């Protein structure tokens, strides 16, 4: 019992020590990407898993965070790191507008609205060539660090803070209200819950965290373009997969999911002939998960344990 309570701290501590062990640059890079996806997954999970508002457009927030960082550097000559704090108000305003338009729609229509939003932003970024550089994207010519260690610590801190904030939120009144809205909107309204307000709060929180991950991505990768950061399949859908594979409405789910998805992507890409087929693998994985483990590995853990127990006795 105690172990479970302290597990997040132990994992955080072990991760923090990792760069001191002389881990290879490649491994560190993979870890950074895993942690970044955990952050995005946790953010999506708050809105989709807990509040039940499925977004197909988290790339919109991710890209917006990334472009905020990139444009601060490109247009104002500031450090792209300013993108982290400044993306917060930018993404919040955007999420408020989006919430105002789409949160009145229930269920699948919200999903469609968010999907459209992601595509609109991509096309806008592609076409506003004077402002965003269009398809050429934005490149940071002088990187802060050559070594990846500091990037690792920054994303680790962001992930730890995200984990803590989401845990606190979910265990508070907000969390109860989010789940109530997910389970039955009419019932929630009749219990005195302002469903529009709380859905907006969930959306803003989720969007801001995703935007922060996007701003980090700009700094870390040093290059973005609209097709990369506003990607429907490679960002929005992968975000959903991270949560669905790992575990919907669980704390550890997005982290497990991020680990599996990123490692899988790395493995598939490293095999020359299979690299091209990575969407096929992802798609099949998604289908299998939805049919057999609809609540993900962490969410359907009891079911999984039963299957394995059966396998042993047989």
């Amino acid at each position, binding site marked *: 019992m105690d172990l479970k309570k302290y597990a997040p701290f132990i994992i955080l501590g072990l991760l923090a020590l990792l760069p001191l062990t002389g881990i290879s640059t490649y491994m560190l890079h993979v870890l950074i990407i895993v942690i970044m996806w955990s952050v995005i997954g946790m953010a999506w999970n708050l809105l989709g898993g807990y509040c039940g508002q499925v977004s197909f457009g988290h790339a919109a927030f991710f890209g917006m965070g990334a472009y905020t960082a990139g444009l601060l550097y490109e247009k104002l000559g500031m450090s792209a790191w300013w993108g982290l704090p400044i993306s917060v108000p930018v993404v919040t305003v955007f999420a408020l507008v989006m919430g105002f338009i789409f949160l009145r729609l229930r269920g699948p229509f919200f999903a469609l609205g968010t999907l459209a939003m992601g595509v609109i932003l991509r096309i806008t970024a592609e076409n506003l060539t004077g402002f965003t550089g269009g398809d050429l994207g934005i490149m940071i010519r002088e990187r802060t660090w050559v070594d990846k260690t500091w990037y690792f610590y920054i994303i680790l801190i962001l992930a730890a803070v995200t984990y803590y904030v989401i845990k606190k939120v979910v*265990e*508070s*009144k907000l969390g*109860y*209200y989010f*789940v*109530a809205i997910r*389970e*039955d909107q*009419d*019932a*929630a*309204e*009749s*219990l*005195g*819950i*302002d*469903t529009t307000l709380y859905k907006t709060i969930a959306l803003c929180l989720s969007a801001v965290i995703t935007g922060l991950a996007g701003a980090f991505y700009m700094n870390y990768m040093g290059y973005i373009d609209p097709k990369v950061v506003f990607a429907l399949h490679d960002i929005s859908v992968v975000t959903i997969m991270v949560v669905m594979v790992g575990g919907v409405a669980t704390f550890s789910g997005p982290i497990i999911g991020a680990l599996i998805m990123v490692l899988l992507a790395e493995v598939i890409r490293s095999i020359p002939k299979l690299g091209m087929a990575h969407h096929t693998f992802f798609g099949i994985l998604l289908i299998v998960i939805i049919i057999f483990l609809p609540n993900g590995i962490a969410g359907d853990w009891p079911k999984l344990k039963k299957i394995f127990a059966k396998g042993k006795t047989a």
Partner: protein
Amino acid sequence: MTAMLEVKGVSRFFGGLAAVNDVSFHVNKGEILALIGPNGAGKTTLFNVVDGFYPPSRGEVLFKGQLISNRKPHQICKLGIARTFQVVKPLQRMSVLDNVIASAFLRSKNKSEAQDIAVETMKFTDLYDDKDVISKSLPLGKRKRLEIARALATRPEMLLLDESFAGLNHAELNVSIEIIRKIKEKGITIMIIEHHMKVIMAISDRIVVLSYGEKLAEGTPAEIRENPAVIEAYLGEAQNA
């Protein structure tokens, strides 16, 4: 006695059909008012108008003298009217306790306070033994009671109960009637929709009869029992059945 709730000339149309047509009545503070009528008489629609799910097409609803018919359900709940649903709407994947905590947050500053209210309410409604059950696996009788518990946890001044007795067995029925009596003793005003005539006659102070969306009669249980129009429209139907 002062009127807790006033329904003034309320009509509600759906695509030209009047589900509720020019209905007026009031509910006194502390009483149990029953709303009866044959199926499709507009009882649930009237509930939905009172608690804000549908705005009235005409007329207005006042709660403690304050106009509420232009407000949203969550605002009306905050003002002190709670309701149950005829088709129960438990928060399925939450435990019974969490269901009640979710509604108790309305009047509490923090989680422990909400938890206290929830535990108290669950003991009051005789659900405490089931507190850890996931509510979708609860039997219907208890789900109906969970609706009541959840409504009570918002600390209402007035409670709207929509067929909270339908489908209950004899033992469950007695438990629920006892709970309604206890709620009344607490000074909470109750408006109830019910088909179970014995229950209605036993617990209600006054009765409003609806038929085809219109008010047919209003009075004490004894008066309603004697009313020829009601006997023809409703009781007669029940006796034939």
